[in-house]
């Protein structure tokens, strides 16, 4: 009995921990700009200090913000797609084939996952300007791909190891061609893993900030996190907290939707690559 109460309290604490700041930023996004300028220290909008949907409308009418959302969605999706294709090839090779250099691949991937991103920004900034990739979509897609590859390769190879590959031969014995065997047996088994890797890759690209602020200078390619940090409203001396909060909420929606739909897969993906004895 005592245990049960402890668990319930624990669960409530976890939920509070996870959701309180989210509730706070949502509440902030509904405060009016005048309330913010005058100071509004309460958790919820005070009487008459609410703004309804005004902040959301204002943010959405902002051309730069819309561009940034569009950039983020485009860049993250392309980087995810390409990174997952490349990682699938590599993970398949690691999980199924014996070849020289296999250890080296895993070591390189591990080293890159630990790499301090900022220390690459200077040289990349210089190189990208020299070859014309600075402030373009590919200029962000390429670094995102290389930095999401380690995670994607680990997750995928962990998944691929679990696939009973003998089933492919069994299908062939039963008269399927090798392509049919691969498509009908292996692809459905591998798909969840590929999908998980894609979600995690998308999270990384969507969250990136360092590349976003260093390798872009205009709204050509600036993604949403960078754009939010440079966001100034009509009054450049007063950070428009409530507008920013509305922007932040909009930028969070895609992630929350993905989490709601795929939570089981994400947990499996995060842990399967990491802690396999």
């Amino acid at each position, binding site marked *: 009995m005592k245990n049960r109460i402890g668990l319930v309290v624990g*669960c409530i604490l*976890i*939920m509070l921990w996870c959701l309180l*700041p989210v509730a706070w930023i949502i509440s902030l996004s509904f*405060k009016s700009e005048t309330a913010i300028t005058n100071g509004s*220290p*309460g*958790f919820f909008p005070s009487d008459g200090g609410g703004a309804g949907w005004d902040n959301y409308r204002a943010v959405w009418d902002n051309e730069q913000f819309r561009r940034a959302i569009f950039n983020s969605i485009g860049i993250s999706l392309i980087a995810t797609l390409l990174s997952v294709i*490349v990682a699938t*090839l*590599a993970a398949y090779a*690691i999980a199924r084939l*014996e070849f020289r*250099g296999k250890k080296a*691949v*895993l070591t390189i991937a591990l080293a890159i996952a*630990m790499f*301090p*991103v*900022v*220390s*690459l*920004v*200077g*040289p*990349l900034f*210089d190189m990208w300007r020299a070859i014309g990739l600075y402030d373009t979509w590919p200029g962000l897609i*390429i670094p995102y*791909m*290389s*930095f999401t*590859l*380690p995670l994607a390769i*680990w997750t995928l190879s*962990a998944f691929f190891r679990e696939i009973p590959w003998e089933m492919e031969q*069994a299908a062939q*014995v*039963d008269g399927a061609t090798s392509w049919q065997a691969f498509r009908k047996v292996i692809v459905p088994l591998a798909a969840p893993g590929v999908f998980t890797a894609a979600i995690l890759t998308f999270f990384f690209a969507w969250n990136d*900030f*360092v590349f976003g602020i260093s390798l872009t200078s205009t709204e050509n390619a600036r993604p*949403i*996190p960078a754009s*939010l*940090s440079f966001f100034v409203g009509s009054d450049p001396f007063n950070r428009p*907290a409530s507008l920013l*909060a509305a922007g*932040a909420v909009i930028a*969070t929606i895609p*992630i*929350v939707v993905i*989490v709601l739909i795929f*939570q*089981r897969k*994400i*947990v499996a993906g*995060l*842990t399967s690559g*990491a*802690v396999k*004895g």
Partner: protein
Amino acid sequence: MTAPVKPAKAKPVASDRARAETRLGQKLVAPAIVLMLLVTAFPMLRALYLSTFDYALTAPDDRSFVGLSNYLTALTDPLFWQTTGVTVLYMVVTVAVELVIGFIFAMVMHRVIFARGVIRTSILIPYGIITVVSGFAWQFAFSFQNGFVNGWLPFVGDDFNWFGQTGSAVVAIMVSEIWKTTPFMSLLLLAGLAQVSEDMIEAAKVDGATWTQRLTKVILPNMRAAIMVAVLFRALDAYRIFDNIFVMTAGAVKTESISFLTYRQTIEQFQLGMGSALSVLLFLSVLVVAFAIVKLFRVDLAQARQES
């Protein structure tokens, strides 16, 4: 339906076949390797080269070779050591707090039978949220004009300015960092907990071990690999702390981390030579941290991470 055929996992008999397999394997991993090295190894070598120049983008024609003097300047500057100190402080405190809270969360999630989906979904929300957004959320929460923190905490005045001095500003940044990354830690620990055999815990219980004894003698030793991996990954991540500082204080009141200093030199002040030297130093210090943790805890990465 035939009985599952179990051909012995093709141990290469013919060396021709082994060579073909090697070729195929290398061909399949080549794109990944090329991409990873293109954006890391090549720029790193370039940073090494640039770091020996006095080279500012604002005056590209004045570029001159200065040997190791950029490193000397950095290493003798108190600012460099101060940012390194703050960075280590961020790393040690956040990882320690996260380990404790993350472990408690993992224990709760491991035992709980009801509302599993809801809890897992909520714990993924901080993980998924953009760091910049969580930085803003916490910055506004700690703001004395528009935040609720001062009102909720009994021991600080309502007009206490958290971002006015180093100590409290560092605390605010750490809170944001801890909030955002504890879920990651607790998920890794949860996976570790799942691998501790229930039978052993039951056996200890039958033998009359107290809860504390079961925790320290059975559960924790069996989770060693998981704990080490979680600590290593979070520590290296925390050492690179950047986003939260950028958003919350922009490096003011000595909250600057070594990543932030590097960024400021390179991108804001266009000092590519000096920035590159700092990049190399940052990279080397990450290696030192990684090496220290691996040695200290004797983590066998290959075993914990991949090669079963």
